[in-house]
């Protein structure tokens, strides 16, 4: 192998790794705050990517209507839970979040969608739609069972993944879609060529990591999320609503997923079910990070991306096998190194 090929593969690996890093961070975030292993993370990726791709062709994606429908269900749940002590402020909040927000996003999408809509608007719309879906997904599927065991949450999570994937087939069809690139600039450095798209991937990944770091390190809401992750009872005792923390975590995760999708859809064709595999690779990174460490997850994601790039060059048939095998030594090492953890009490 010559240096050029190696550099190419490394570049490819780092670009993919950056995406996996974003997804891995979202998985760690959601698990830490809610103990949910977010299998539908991949669906946030495809929903974001394909909604964006459809908007780019001037069509309104079905996800906009899904957001409204999920909002209605969430509204029903909110009212049902609060039925004993319904006061105006509570109802007003539920109406605003569950009805007005998704409806506004949906109407905005219908109003703005067209073949000439600027890319930035399409991106914003796709993000808003997926953010709403993420928020309501937590409200509908996970909030009512938030106190149950990790296993129950995992199974619910698998259920959500299957449901969302099926809906994805309805909305986007079985054909793959590609979206327009964020920019067509290209730089050449030696034998390497950097497209505007891959630069956007690096830039946004770094920006997101810094933003998350600032959010968790300095804002009160971020600290409250961390507190929920560290000690749920302690958090409740200072008045932090764990349901709100969960909703924020899901909102962030769906946003991160959608952004990842929008970043890769100009590079590779995405199908309604591609997200799962991409999400799983982020999951491997998250597992290597022990589902707790953000920096370790980011580094592991770059490793996963690089291994994937090299194995697709040398043994493309075994690409996925090699990537997923990465998890085995990590699990073995972790189980040897970590002290035995008791099953959760509650």
């Amino acid at each position, binding site marked *: 192998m010559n240096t050029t090929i190696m550099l190419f593969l490394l570049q490819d690996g780092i670009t993919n790794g950056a995406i996996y890093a974003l997804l891995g961070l979202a998985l760690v975030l959601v698990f830490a705050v809610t103990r949910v292993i977010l299998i539908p993370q991949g669906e946030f990726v495809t929903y974001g990517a394909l909604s964006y791709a459809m908007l780019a062709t001037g069509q309104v994606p079905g996800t906009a209507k899904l957001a409204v429908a999920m909002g209605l269900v969430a509204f029903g749940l909110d009212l049902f839970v609060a039925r*004993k*002590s319904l006061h105006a402020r509570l109802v007003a909040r539920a109406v605003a979040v569950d009805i007005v927000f998704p409806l506004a996003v949906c109407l905005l999408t219908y109003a703005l969608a067209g073949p000439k809509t600027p890319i930035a608007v399409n991106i914003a719309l796709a993000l808003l739609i997926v953010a709403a879906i993420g928020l309501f997904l937590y409200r509908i599927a996970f909030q009512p069972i938030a106190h149950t065991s990790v296993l129950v949450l995992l199974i619910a999570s698998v259920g959500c993944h299957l449901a969302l994937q099926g809906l994805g087939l309805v909305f986007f069809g079985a054909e793959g879609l590609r979206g327009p690139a964020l920019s067509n600039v290209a730089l050449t450095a030696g034998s390497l060529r950097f497209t505007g798209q891959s630069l956007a991937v690096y830039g946004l990944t770094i920006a997101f990591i810094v933003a998350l770091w600032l959010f968790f390190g300095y804002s*009160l809401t971020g*600290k*409250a999320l*961390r*507190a929920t992750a*560290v*000690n749920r*009872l*302690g*958090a*409740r*005792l*200072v*008045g*932090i*609503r764990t349901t709100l923390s969960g909703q924020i975590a899901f909102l962030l995760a769906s946003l991160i997923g959608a952004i990842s999708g929008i970043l890769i859809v100009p590079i590779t064709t995405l199908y309604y079910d591609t997200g799962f595999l991409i999400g799983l690779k982020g999951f491997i990174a998250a597992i290597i990070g022990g589902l707790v460490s953000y920096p370790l997850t980011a580094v592991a994601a770059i490793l996963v991306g690089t291994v994937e790039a090299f194995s697709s060059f040398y043994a493309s048939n075994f690409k996925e096998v090699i990537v997923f095998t990465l998890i085995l030594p990590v699990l073995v090492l972790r189980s040897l190194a970590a002290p035995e953890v008791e099953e959760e009490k509650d």
Partner: protein
Amino acid sequence: MSALLSVSDVHIAYGKVEAIRGVSLEVNENEIVTIIGANGAGKTTLLNAVMGILPLKGRTDFAGQDMAALDIEDRVAAGLCLVPEHRELFATMNVEDNLQLGAFRIPKATAANSFERVYSLFPRLKERRKQLAGTLSGGEQQMLAMGRALMGAPKLLMLDEPSLGLAPIIVADIFRTIGELRAAGVSVLLVEQNAQAALRIADRAYVMELGEFVLSGAAGDIANNQRVAASYLGFQHEGESAV
């Protein structure tokens, strides 16, 4: 004036086993009330249920409001705060962040005052404000747990075994601080095994045995009660002494 906290005829069960059987108690404003009793008498269970962590049967009122429909977070917002037995600190966050989160429910401007107040009550916390909560000594962790609770400017602070596992000199310090809280307008409901220290600072006391109150009254009277002296204070009174 009605009581700040009133608990009437409360039953708490773990499955089929009734841990608390028909307990009633009151805490008035600016009052320190203590519940003493042996290990396993049900003191912690009662506090947890009043806070909303455990379900209970019976009526609990706080500041004139029935708490049946309120969850933990609502109770915190209403001014009821628990420092639990295991402290439940945010171990991987520093002292300052722990305190800041204690003021999660109150406006930012008020939180600045709270910081000042807590740091003046516990100067040690100010020295350690950048240290992770998990690396503090037991006594400092207890101070931090109390400080975090006080950050939210509660009306009633419930303390569950604040002296547990602490060196005597620190216990004295903590109890002195509890005494100072009353001057700051905070009522205290104190659950303790260290009956002697608790009775010294309390106004009134309840004695709990096997899920029931067997005795209640002014702290001084309880301290002089023969049975209490024998069971909890570790000595026999030589006849009756006036207090």
